[in-house]
């Protein structure tokens, strides 16, 4: 993928994947996308024609729903956490600011895999004890969603913080000078502009989270990676299985990228104000 991280401070920041837009000459054509399409086409051909691949496909694909569902739920929660923590990070209230910063730095300081197992096997059981609910009532799928939401909430908080801070002080002053409250100024003036600047970076994180759901296999959640590993454990056919897994992730992420760049074009978000 054409990768650049959406640099919030740079007005010329490139969206997560630039699929060309207007093609003015042969130089502008996205040949790399053809390459990806060729890989996916080849694997699709194998799955439909060879039994070995077809068997693997049949075992992996039931996990797709879980992969997508987990991503959607976790990302939706992460957006809420991220907005709150991001606002907290720039709060003038010392307590709020430090609580938010503490959370963000703790999450950023620990590998995702370690966070996932810690949340699932340490934090949730302790929480069950403390708040008196049955530890078994929360299945691994929801522990996985909570873990991913907490992790990406911290990453998104930094995106929200940078996005909000990228809006000039003059905007806030203009709102306040008109008698608007700090909350009204944030909601009606700063955030609409900030979110427009942040969409490339938020899109990147959505794609990153989709990929990180593969780590949930450590919780024995039956998403596509876990299904692949389980199948290989009985069939010993790594070479017939993992290329399919590879192709499924690639299809998902490239589709998401295309969707995001279509969305940005559709709503004119690439037009800089």
């Amino acid at each position: 993928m054409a990768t650049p991280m959406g640099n919030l401070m740079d007005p010329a920041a490139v969206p997560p994947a630039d699929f060309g837009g207007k093609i003015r000459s042969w130089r502008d054509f996205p040949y790399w996308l053809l390459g990806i399409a060729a890989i996916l086409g080849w694997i699709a051909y194998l799955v439909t024609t060879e039994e070995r691949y077809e068997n693997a496909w049949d075992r992996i694909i039931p996990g797709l729903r879980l992969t997508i569902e987990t991503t959607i739920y976790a990302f939706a929660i992460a957006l809420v956490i991220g907005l709150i923590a991001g606002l907290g990070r720039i709060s003038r209230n010392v307590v709020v600011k430090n609580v938010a910063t503490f959370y963000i730095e703790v999450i950023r300081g620990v590998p995702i895999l370690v966070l996932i197992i810690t949340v699932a096997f340490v934090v949730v059981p302790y929480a069950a004890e403390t708040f008196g609910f049955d530890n078994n009532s929360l299945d691994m799928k929801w522990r996985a969603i909570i873990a991913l939401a907490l992790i990406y909430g911290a990453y998104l908080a930094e995106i929200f913080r940078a996005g909000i801070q990228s809006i000039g002080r003059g905007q806030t002053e203009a709102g306040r000078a008109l008698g608007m409250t700090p909350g009204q100024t944030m909601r009606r003036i700063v955030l609409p502009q900030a979110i427009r600047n942040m969409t490339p970076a938020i899109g990147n994180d959505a794609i990153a989270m989709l990929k990180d759901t593969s780590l949930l296999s450590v919780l024995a959640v039956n998403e596509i990676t876990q299904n692949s590993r389980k199948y290989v454990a009985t069939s010993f056919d790594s070479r017939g299985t993992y290329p399919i897994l590879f192709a499924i992730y690639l299809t998902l992420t490239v589709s998401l990228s295309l969707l995001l760049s279509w969305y940005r074009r559709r709503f004119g978000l690439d037009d800089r104000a």
Partner: protein
Amino acid sequence: MPKAPRAQHAPGPEMVVIENLHKRFGPVRAVDGVSLKVETGQVVVIVGPSGSGKSTVLRCINLLETPSAGNVWVDGIHVNAKNCDLNTVRAEVGMVFQGFNLFPHLTALENVMLAQRLVRGRNKTEAREVAFAQLLRVGIAEKANVYPRHLSGGQQQRVAIARSLAMNPRVMLFDEPTSALDPEVINEVLDVMLKLASEGMTMVVVTHEMGFARRAGNQLVMMDEGRIVEQGAPDEIFANPREERTRAFFAKILSH
């Protein structure tokens, strides 16, 4: 304006009263003991070299800066009193910035409507009518549905003026409203300001436009190093500046 405390001294004809105002930024004394009265319907023009504290004085009137010491009253309301409701006061004080500060995600009309709806509680129809009338007043109604990025600097600044006027302010503050403009569009903004002045709007204007000061100003205030050096009728000061610093300042800006 509810909730705000009334002044001890009689409100009288003064719209803005500044009393021994000080503002420090760390070790820097940006404003160092300024007292100033602006009568209702008057236009006061503040001039002075950059860094003389003139913008800071202006920003202390609507509390975009909090005074370090001293008092500010607007229409009899002690605005830097602890229990003063800032948002209520600010709604009564229009401000026009050097950099326009229009909201880029809203059209000209929406820019003028937003605060009316949120702060004045007007409904959509009413806010739209007022907004349109104000855009007409500054001569830019035909651009109502255009986004700020498609407007020239002069047009943007006129929209910004309309945005303030739509709140029916009791006093308008102008912070170097033409300093960011190309020379050929400065006059379209000054014309609007002259019109407002002739309609009796109380105005405090920080500017380098001496022509405007002469034509519209009732009072000229010359500031340097955080203090008022000299003040009086513009014609008198231009003709016969008493202070050496005023003469030096005029010599610098009028020599070309």
